[in-house]
């Protein structure tokens, strides 16, 4: 029985059943919820469809958000990719555009899938849909990838936190990147151990990242951190797939993230009192927005 108390437990369950983490999580969830694997699979398929719609809505959009702080940037990035102007190439460029697209839809009170949270909702759809499209991976692998990501996210939420108010941005965009990294590894045929290393590497990369939304809005810097988050997931997945291992095991990285989160001042945890939110420009923007 899986308790979601450690990544190691997920890896061992997958290895001993000679399968991947996504499949283990799908079967465990079906057993726990008293529902069929087909039913859970279809629900996840619907979530993937909402993700796809949010990507498309965001890429089409050129308008600014109601606050005027964001909007239209995903479209700019898409144009740069289409005109072959991105330095990182097509796959990275599309991933960045998609992550920002979903985050922009979220900022304008549109419909998204929290994954694990709304503030970090662009990372997982961008990672999975881009790898799926660019590598011609069947949708089934992406849906199982969402179960991989969900299993990793459950462990993080039990052993640390996925809330910016409790753990800062490392707990939101960091967790999303760790979940996405593990999912990418399994989608392209990596081992459960590689998925665990990818999770650890992605989370390590952003330990200490603060949650400092300008004027309290989930826009600046959140939307661009979704772009950075999907890049982080791709970096971690590529490292792990190449055989690079995290010196610190995933479970200890998660524990470190929890500890860093609790050491962090509340000014840096979604209260809009510290970090970027405390800069002169941010304070001016906040005054303007609250007066309008």
């Amino acid at each position, binding site marked *: 029985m899986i*308790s*979601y108390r450690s990544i190691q437990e997920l890896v061992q369950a997958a290895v001993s059943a000679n399968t991947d983490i996504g499949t283990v*999580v799908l079967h465990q*969830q079906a057993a*726990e*919820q008293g529902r069929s694997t087909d039913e*859970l699979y279809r*629900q*996840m398929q*619907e*979530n993937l469809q*909402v993700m796809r719609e949010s990507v498309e809505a965001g890429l089409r959009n050129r308008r600014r958000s109601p*606050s005027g702080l964001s909007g239209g940037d995903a479209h700019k990035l898409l144009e740069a990719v289409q005109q072959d102007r991105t330095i990182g190439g097509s796959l990275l460029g599309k991933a960045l555009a998609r992550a920002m697209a979903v985050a922009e*839809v*979220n*900022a*304008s*009170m*549109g*419909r*998204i*899938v*929290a*994954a*694990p*949270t*709304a*503030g970090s*909702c662009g990372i*997982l759809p961008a990672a999975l849909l881009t790898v799926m499209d660019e590598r011609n991976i069947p949708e089934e692998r992406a849906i199982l990838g*969402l*179960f991989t*990501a*969900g*299993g990793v*996210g*459950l462990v993080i*939420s*039990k052993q640390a*936190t*996925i*809330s*910016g*108010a*409790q753990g800062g941005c490392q707990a939101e965009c960091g967790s999303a990147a760790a*979940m996405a990294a593990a999912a990418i590894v399994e989608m392209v045929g990596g081992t459960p151990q590689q998925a665990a290393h990818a999770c650890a590497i992605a989370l390590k990369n952003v330990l200490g990242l603060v949650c400092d*939304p300008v*004027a*309290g*809005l*989930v*826009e600046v810097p959140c939307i661009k951190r979704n772009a950075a988050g999907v890049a982080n997931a791709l970096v971690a997945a590529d490292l792990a797939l190449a055989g690079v291992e995290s010196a610190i095991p995933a479970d200890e990285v998660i524990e470190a993230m929890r500890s860093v989160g609790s050491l962090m001042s*509340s000014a840096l*945890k*979604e*209260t*809009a*009192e510290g970090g970027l939110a405390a800069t002169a420009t941010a304070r001016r923007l906040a005054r303007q*927005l*609250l007066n309008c």
Partner: protein
Amino acid sequence: MTDIFDIIGPVMIGPSSSHTAGAVRLGMIARRLLGEPPASAVIRLHGSFARTYKGHGTDKAIIAGLLGFAPDDLRIRNSLQIAQEEGLKYEFHPADLGDLHPNTALIELAGVSGKTLSLLGSSVGGGRVQIHSINGFPADCTAEYHTLIVYHRDTPGVIAAVTGILARRSVNIAQMKVHRSHRGGRSVIILETDEEITEDLCEEVRGVANVTGVTFLHAV
């Protein structure tokens, strides 16, 4: 609770799962507990809720929940205007509610027929909520399960009688908590169940000796 769709989900209206989706759920729970459409609402916001509610649309979200909208309803964007059209009066006040989770709200409602309700709850991340008290009494639950709350005088046999009623009706208890003010004082049982709790079942529980009040809440 280890539901994967709390992590890959919920499907919701942005911008914040804790400040928007969770806030909609707090509003929905308050409306269900009131048992009728609210006519007026006084909402006190604590911590991060107090400081950032306008930016995250927490006010629109709680009002949307009070209007009965789900967290993925696109009308959340316009809920303040819809509340005006439907005659729901509301006030928001920043407040220090004590040593509680940073995203906490105290929602006080008066319904169209004059019923009142107060709900103290927190949005704990990912759209999930934690209820602390209802009408000032402890009511520690998440509304992820069907929930039966039984207030009673602390006397032997009440818990057995209540759980006996559930057993006879094949309602399985997932979690159960008991709090009391002091020995022989005011006491509360919070039962989270897998099966639905019917009005009929509540009526039977109300008939148990020393039970002083019964509240039930469908999972939201």
